[in-house]
């Protein structure tokens, strides 16, 4: 398998001036350098010829105000940016200029050469891949809806916005060339504008009228929808929304920033740095997977599950009880499949205790976790052990 030449890619993508002279595109002649390296020293002969109508060497305040985002030179002198770089313990191979670029949202600077959109796309794929493989390998029997919910909890927009706040990244009031590059820069939504927000269809099995009936199956989300089970926005919708709404929310901009930082980290420091970054900043967050379940008919689900797995039909038996005739009785009921107790629940009534027992039995099945956690991305490392196939549950229980 050929090794990926990430450094070369990052150089060619981000540092056009480092390429051989013959293949430098005319785009590089512009004065807004988007490279990760410092702005090359312009020879006077070149700068004096085209100085008319062009950007002068020293950027004045008037010129800075005309720029949509801070110039690349400002990154090296920003104390805020250096502090962020040190606070996140980012590797020194990730230059400050690139970190500054990850803080520029597409709503602030529409040019893809200066905003974080390319990094964001790459970083989103990495975050989705590493999170999903972790969740699936850790809990191979989770229903897909819970997988989506866990993904949302780990790397969803709200989680990434919270991470951005925890990192101490502050947002600028308005983007511009004079803004300190250490601030998150995006164009805010106008207060009176209607976001057209609708409640997220996350986990909801109910069909969405806008997307059509056939698209809302939980299995079809795996194929057609994004990593959170949401409907992927089509290109037409994106254009329509971008023209209708100028600006984004802070949550959206924070999401783009975290994703872009992950992508930039991969381009400049490689896979190992991204994995350790992901482990330290995302997997270190505590998430109670058991709280993500929402059963409607747990007893019916349990009987279906037992039928599917070939177990005996579940039977609820009273394990113990107290105060049946009192005001506060407590029943402890166990659900048994043959002689095996699948789960146990306590409640103030027999129905409640039986439901709790069924829920406990279902969670015990779904939250199975293998003793040794191995993820597929480990195989990318040199000298990895042979991969043992992981048994993932065949699918949800269809009632």
């Amino acid at each position: 398998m050929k090794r990926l030449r990430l450094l070369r890619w990052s150089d060619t993508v981000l540092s056009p001036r480092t390429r051989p002279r013959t293949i430098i595109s005319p785009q590089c002649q512009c004065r807004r350098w988007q490279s990760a390296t410092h702005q090359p020293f312009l020879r006077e002969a070149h700068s004096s010829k085209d100085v008319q109508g062009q950007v002068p060497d020293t950027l004045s305040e008037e010129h800075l105000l005309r720029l949509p985002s801070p110039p690349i030179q400002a990154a090296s002198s920003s104390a805020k940016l250096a502090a962020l770089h040190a606070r996140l313990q980012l590797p020194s191979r990730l230059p400050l200029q690139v970190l500054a670029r990850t803080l520029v949202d597409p709503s602030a600077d529409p040019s893809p050469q200066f905003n974080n959109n390319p990094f964001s796309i790459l970083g989103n794929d990495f975050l989705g891949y590493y999170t999903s493989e972790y969740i699936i390998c850790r809990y191979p029997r989770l229903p897909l809806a819970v997988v989506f919910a866990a993904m949302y909890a780990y790397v969803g927009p709200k989680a990434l916005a919270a991470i951005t706040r925890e990192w101490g990244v502050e947002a600028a009031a308005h983007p511009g060339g004079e803004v300190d590059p250490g601030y998150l820069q995006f164009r805010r939504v106008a207060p009176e504008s209607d976001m057209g927000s609708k409640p997220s269809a996350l986990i909801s099995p109910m069909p969405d009228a806008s997307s059509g009936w056939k698209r809302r199956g939980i299995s079809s989300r795996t194929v057609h929808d994004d990593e959170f089970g949401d409907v992927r926005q089509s290109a037409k919708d994106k254009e329509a929304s971008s023209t209708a709404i100028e600006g984004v929310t802070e949550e959206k901009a924070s999401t783009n920033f975290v994703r872009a930082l992950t992508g930039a980290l991969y381009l400049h420091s490689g896979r190992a740095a991204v994995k350790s970054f992901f482990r330290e900043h995302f997997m270190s967050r505590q998430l109670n997977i058991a709280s993500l379940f929402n059963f409607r008919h747990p007893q019916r689900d349990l009987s279906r599950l037992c039928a599917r797995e070939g177990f005996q039909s579940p039977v609820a038996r009273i394990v113990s009880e107290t105060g049946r005739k009192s005001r506060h009785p407590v029943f402890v009921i166990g659900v048994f499949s043959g002689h095996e107790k699948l789960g146990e629940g306590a409640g103030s009534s027999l129905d409640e205790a039986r439901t709790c027992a069924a829920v406990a039995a279902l969670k015990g099945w779904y939250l199975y976790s293998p003793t040794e956690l191995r993820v597929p991305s480990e195989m990318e490392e040199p000298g990895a052990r042979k991969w043992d196939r992981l048994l993932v549950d065949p699918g949800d229980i269809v009632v």
Partner: protein
Amino acid sequence: MQSTRDASSGLPWTERIRRKMWGSDNPPGLKDPYGGPGYFERRRQEAQAERGRGQIPTEPTIVEHEPALPEPGLPEMSTLEEESAQNTEHSHAQDMMRSRSVPENDPEKEDLTYVQAETWNGLEQVGLSGHWSETPPTPADSFRPYLAAFEKASSWKEILSALHQAVVEVVTLRDSRLPLTYSLGHIAYKPDVLAALSTTTIEFDYHSKQIVLKYKDGGRRLMVEAILGDDLQRSISPYEPVAETTYAEVPALEANGDTTFTAPDQESQELRSQEADFPGQDIEYDGTHTFVATKEEMNNGNGDQYKNNIEDLPPQKRTAYTVTSADFITMPLEPLELRFAVIKRASQLTGHRIPDPLITARQSLSSIYSYLGRDRDSPPKKVADRLLIKPDVINLPNVHIMPRRETPVDKDKRLGRWKIIEAELHSKGLPVLGKSRV
């Protein structure tokens, strides 16, 4: 007796001791470890060669210039005394006598044309005749210490601007591929050059790992022309002679695409030649007095002018300007030649001597800056100046030192909020910053 046996071998006493000490007939070291022939011996041999008598001057050997070997049987102590006496009483006359006496011992090599001198008239003279003050001065005698060009810098602002000026000048010379010490003769600049100098920002290129300059509106051209074109001012620096090929080099550089400054045209050269017709006149640039001496004055060999130049030229008052960013102090100055040129020029501009260990102590100018300000009467009053002399603070990347107080407007500008506030105030016709527009 041992001395008798050794004396018969023809070896001098010192050589015998040497061999005894080393225990070998071929002791290591120089053939003659005691200095060889003296000045007069060598000069006598040269004179013999010049006279060209057909005799090949004999190589001075140890035997020839050693005192006569002691007679066999004499004690060694007497030999020692004799030798020391000869060394102490080594005078010119004795040497001449000895040099004359050598051919007498060798009748075959005797100079037949030799006439013994009765008086000193006509004899070749060695050394200075008369008093040294009566000798006319030469160009090499004119010395002007480069530290005497300017008055001593007395404020932090002057020190900082001097360091800034030194870096800008030397890096400009480096980029123009000119000698780095070329700017040492410049005392005063014109106001436009001074403005270009003060607006030039110094940045560090992490890609090429060297300092680069950002000029404003053709500042580089002004700078190079000021350094190269001011021939008259340069001439006050006799220790840094102007290269004759200065203007010839410039078009070559320009043709290579390295520079854009133009070579001084004919008109400006004529103007310079006209200025050179009036030696010693003062030229005023914005109140700054500059002593001007021409190259003809320096080269016509009249010693009075050198003396006058040295004595009459007072230290100039340097025009200090405000440096916007002091970040350049922490930037590494590499290679050592560049750093040395910058420090030499900074030493000249500030009028302070800088000790040698400081030049190689750090790659940046931070230690120089703190050293130059060490003996200020009072510590700097501004907090920024106090912090700037602490290298451990200014080297921190997450610390930004502002030269003035940070106002709410600065915070709003950093946040991008100020332009919106300003636009809103303008639209409502309200004064910005609490002052109504006139």
